[in-house]
């Protein structure tokens, strides 16, 4: 069973796999924002950090 965090961008639930490891990338199904899993404390729980993502470039 996986834990759930809330997307920092759109607040949708983002499942975090039970066997996830620090540094793993998870993606919000709703808005596509990618997050890196970081350890929140010593209890092994994860928090979401915005991961680097490709931006659009329309010749700006």
């Amino acid at each position, binding site marked *: 069973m996986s834990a759930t965090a809330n997307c*920092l*961008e*759109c*607040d*949708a639930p983002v499942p975090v796999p039970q066997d996830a490891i620090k540094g793993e990338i998870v*993606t919000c199904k*709703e*808005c*596509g*924002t*990618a997050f890196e899993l970081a350890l929140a404390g010593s209890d092994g729980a994860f928090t979401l950090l915005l991961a680097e*993502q*490709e931006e*659009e470039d329309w010749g700006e």
Partner: protein
Amino acid sequence: MVRVAVLGASGYIGGELLRLLLQHPEAELVAATSRTHAGEYVFRVHPNLRGTTELKFSSFDGGGLAGSADLAFAALPHGESVKAVPQLADAGLKVIDLSADFRLSDSRMYPVWYGYDHPRPDLLEKFVLSIPEINRDKVKGASLVSSPGCTAITAILALAPLLKDKSLGVDRDHIVVDAKVGSSGAGGKPSLSTHFSERFNVVRPYKPAGHRHSAEIEQVLASLSGERVAVSMSAHAVNMVRGILSTSHLFVSPPPKPIDVWKAYRAMYSGSYFVRMVRDKQGPFRLPDPKLVIGSNFCDVGFEIEERTGRLVALSATDNLVKGAAGNAVQSMNLMLGLDEKTGLTMAPLHPV
């Protein structure tokens, strides 16, 4: 099975109604009327329907329809519908009108926006302007329904949650809607401006000020927010056959956080199958694009925020003939009949198109 008739069935919206109703599991199509094509096979005018029906167009006969149909869709031109629909309404048929003749609740607005005095103002209060995602409970109990214009419904679906959620603090006096519309939005009657040589490759402004659909948008948004709302709208003909992209500009001080805007949309649309939130960080289609809704009853909705100027950009895309017209009308019929509103409408959009 409900027996349905389509009035004005030779136009593009009429043809789309036939396409949807012919594969609807709870509808039996009993008549398709056309003044100019009476006696012809339906598929001679709508060649995509060859092999799907042997139905022929017939002349409008209000008395006859009263005995043979339970519900009628009226896809007649503005000003014509108001002559035919009262006969059906008075005979007790359920009616879904797709013209502008019953969209505005205040008869005094007809001379202002449409240039005529409404001949049956008594009927206006009996019609429900149907956008199921916004007022499905009212539509469920209605016998007489009006379906909004295609650009109006597209813009409204992007704007409604932002006006309803007062915590966002949207400036209600300065809302600008910019719509890009495909050629089928102009109907099936050819003219010089729709001639291929003149229409192909255009980005042609039409009605950059005073667009009639402003009235419907203001009416719906004002009823949702409980306050007067002023909408300025411009439309452009672009190089598509189907599709509308509505880009609406709202001004908010201080600008909201994306998460608050997401919450406003979810609060209104979380149970609405046909509204899809599209604000994606990945892929080539990160915001709504009509290309991805063609052939479907979906309305894709998304937004962006310009913090520097306090501008909230609300985007929405529909297939103008489906969610913008015939699909919204069939969805309304489903509700009026007590059916699941998705019945007969769950087809996925075409891609690529």
